[in-house]
């Protein structure tokens, strides 16, 4: 904990607001430790306990947890651009899905001649469409390293081009949100087409194995879950590091007053573009980890509502705090799993109400609520947290303006 503080805390000036207060560094450590412990315990409970034991964690639960962690990583990506830079992206599911398609293509090639049509080269849907050979963009996707490179490079490049075009011409606020939504909508339409060569409506599915290990085996599922947790931890620490760096401070200043930051000589669009690309890469990693765990990727993942759902996870958890995004993603998705099992029709009502209630009554989310509590406790014990809290207030106001 102390070492973490030393790593990230030194560069920041003491009056810089909530981001670099000891509280955040400590939460980073807490998050990492909690994630680590959960992963180890859940994996161990699955692998070494007998199914009769009350503490046994079923493989289904492990996969579910893995899925939640992928969502958490996606929420983290959205939080980084929205919470820290004020860029509300309603199209992050596009990067998520593109990453997922990259992984999906690799898994598709791994099926080999075990498909329904038994063609060693072509995936089933291409045989079905009477295609003669692999399209050029499928070449090389049977190599894991290359597929992963593409799964990251394509969303990253898209984010770079889109961000560069949008931020350069100072498209901000609601305009930008609508444009990102249009982006994911356009991609959804495109991927629904059979001619695109990504399986059209059905997407990519029926995967068999990854790197030679069967996707059905418990060990592989636990490993995927553990890797997801590891990636989330890495992303969290890296994001914390970035947000505490000089770069991160410029980002926050852009959020609170872009014109001022620009007048001070910062090329704000460059900062925003690189942050956007970073965030898109995180989303792509989440997507790539998501696909082998759920076993399917289809164009529905691009649908605008998915992206907006991510935003509400972040809003509920509390934007501008990295751990808030994770809490929000896990809470909402857990609720969704439970709710759709009990009352399928009610879920959209609940989700809609959540949107309205969170924005009206809980603008800073659960994390904001917790921080308020902690501040209040500190205020009671008189340990001089006043300066920090007034800064935080300013920040929050700036973010909401």
């Amino acid at each position, binding site marked *: 904990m102390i070492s973490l503080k030393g790593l990230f805390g030194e560069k920041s000036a003491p009056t810089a607001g909530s981001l670099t207060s000891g509280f955040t560094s400590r939460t980073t450590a807490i998050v990492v430790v909690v994630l680590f412990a959960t992963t180890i315990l859940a994996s161990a409970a699955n692998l070494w306990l007998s199914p009769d034991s009350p503490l046994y964690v079923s493989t289904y639960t492990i996969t579910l947890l893995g899925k939640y962690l992928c969502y958490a990583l996606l929420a983290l990506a959205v939080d980084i651009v929205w919470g820290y830079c004020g860029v*509300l992206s309603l199209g992050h599911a596009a990067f998520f899905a593109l990453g997922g398609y990259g992984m999906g293509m690799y898994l598709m090639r791994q099926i080999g001649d075990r498909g329904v049509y038994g063609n060693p080269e072509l995936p089933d849907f291409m045989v079905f469409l009477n295609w003669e050979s692999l399209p050029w963009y499928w070449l090389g996707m049977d190599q894991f390293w290359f597929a992963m490179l593409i799964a990251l490079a394509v969303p990253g490049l898209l984010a770079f081009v*889109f961000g560069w*075009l*949008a931020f*350069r*011409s*100072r*498209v901000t*606020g*609601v*305009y930008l*949100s*609508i*444009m990102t*939504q*249009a*982006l994911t*909508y*356009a991609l959804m*339409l*495109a991927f*629904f*087409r059979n001619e695109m060569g990504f399986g059209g409506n059905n997407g990519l599915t029926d995967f068999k194995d990854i790197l030679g290990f069967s996707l059905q085996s418990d060990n592989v599922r636990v490993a995927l879950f553990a890797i997801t947790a590891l990636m989330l931890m890495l992303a969290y620490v890296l994001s914390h590091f970035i947000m505490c760096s000089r770069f991160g401070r410029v980002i926050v200043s852009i959020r609170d007053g872009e014109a001022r930051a620009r007048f001070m000589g910062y090329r704000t669009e460059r900062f925003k573009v690189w942050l956007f690309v970073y965030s898109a890469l995180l989303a792509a990693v989440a997507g790539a980890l998501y696909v082998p765990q759920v076993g399917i990727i289809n164009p529905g993942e691009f649908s*605008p*509502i998915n992206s*907006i759902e991510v*935003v*509400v996870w972040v*809003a509920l958890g509390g934007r501008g705090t990295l751990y808030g995004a994770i809490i929000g993603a896990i809470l909402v998705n857990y609720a969704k799993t439970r709710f759709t099992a009990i009352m399928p*029709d009610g879920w*959209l*009502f609940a*989700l*809609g*109400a*959540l*949107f*309205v209630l*969170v*924005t*009206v009554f809980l*603008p800073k989310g659960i994390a904001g609520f917790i921080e308020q509590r902690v501040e209040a406790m500190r205020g009671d014990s008189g340990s001089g947290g006043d300066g920090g809290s007034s800064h935080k207030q300013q920040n929050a106001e700036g973010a*909401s*303006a």
Partner: protein
Amino acid sequence: MFANVLSSWGISVKQTRQLIGWVFSLSLLLGSSWLYAQQSIDKIESTDNYAVAISADVDQLFKDLAAANLREKSNIITSLDQQSGREMLPVYQAMLNGELYYDKESLQLYQVKDNDQGKESVYSVFSGELVEGQTAKGLKKVRVNNKLRKQLRGSIARIQLLFGERAERQAAAQTMLDNISPETLALFQDAAENESDQEIRDLLAVGMAMNTVATASATEERVAAIGVLSTRLETPVRNQLMNLVDKDSSGEFVEQDAAVRAAAESALKEIDGKIRFYGFMEKLFFGLSLGSVFLLAAIGLAITFGVMGVINMAHGEMIMLGAYTTYVVQLLMPNHLEWTILVAIPAAFLVSGSVGVIIERTVIRFLHGRPLETLLATFGISLILQQLVRTIFSPLNRQVSTPDWLSGSIELNPVFSLTYNRLSILIFSLVVFAILMLVMKKTSLGLNVRAVSQNRNMAKAMGIKTERVDSMTFGLGSGIAGVAGVALSQLTNVGPNLGQSYIIDSFMVVVFGGVGNLLGTLVGSFSLGVANKFLEPVTGAVLANIIILVFIILFIQKRPKGLFPQKGRAAE
């Protein structure tokens, strides 16, 4: 078409021609006696079996028809063709559909078909009225075979061409163009003599010219006929000309006469030019039609966004509510389906408008000055509204019927027609736009709205109740969305996702046109609509959509505030 139908039954064109030729030679033979019969009709006492005055001859023929075998029937029909006119049409049609029955005792003919409740009932064969007290039990069907059906179709076309209403005559002539033969030619010549309508006479002349081109031997005659054809846009004309300039498999021209070929080529060029022009006009019309839908959907959004800076993600659901209001109004007044639309327009305005006001009062008011949060909250509302409609009306699509005065189309020529519903929605959208412009420019509400949109604080200082203006504006924008829903219910199915499919396009229109500028919305929606329809045939519908989205993203680079940005102090 005639020939196509027959050949689909395995009867060749040649056989058809033989048959028709046979029918006509018989009819020519009997033609003179028909004239004679016409004169003597007064003398022959008419029977009242059929509630229509028919001659005893015809009555006798009917009796024969009931009892005859298939070959005799064919002769009887030929005789009937000679002896009567238009009144025979329902008999032929009933016979063609296998609905003609006869009483075994009296040999009286009846039509038997299912009534509205799906129960078999007996109708008078001429008037189509229900015959009380007569059951289908004692009746026997007048049997027909394919050969007879073919003959009946010919007879029906002949009756329609000679005695039909104007539209019937036109349709019959157009159908017969598909299969011009010496026999149809005789009929055409017959019809042309009695035809008073210029348009149909032209059509008949086309048929005759087609025959001339096909059969005449003199070059001048054929070239002249091609000259007549070169002004026409009918498909059979074009097909015939194409055949004239075609080469056969050995590379030789099918048509030996070079002069005829040259004439056909220039005629084709002329026709193709015209078809291209009308194709262009059609695309333009579809584009404008799509634009009018965009306009209706986006205009309410432009108001709320322009004035309050609020993006209402539930705007699409306001459209959906309007469409469902139309559906409910239709359920409430099933006996006046013609006028439901007129009732639905104000009803939808009120329903969507009041829902809009409620949303503004209960949610949006508290999120003032936080546009991104408003976006999220209204998105939540849209989810709730969608699910609500799904729960109440089921997730399935609902059908809203189109009144008669909105269905059908104006057919300007064979390749270009305007459908009434699209045309009226185009006009309707412009009317709504004009009314809204008037409201914004000429009423005190409009003045207040403009004042608040330009400088909220100053307006407040001048005593304008900005909160009230906000509610009214939101209500107005939502109400117009509801009206858009009424219009859309005439074009597409009414379902819970109706609004969603238009919301992104509407946003694009608003962003493209420039926020807070109604004129920009007008130009934006029509140009996007037209661009979409012109791209569609080249790239396919989905790719056209994508190209337009990419174009707008690039356009925003050049003009971040849209086509018509707000000027002066209103712009930050």
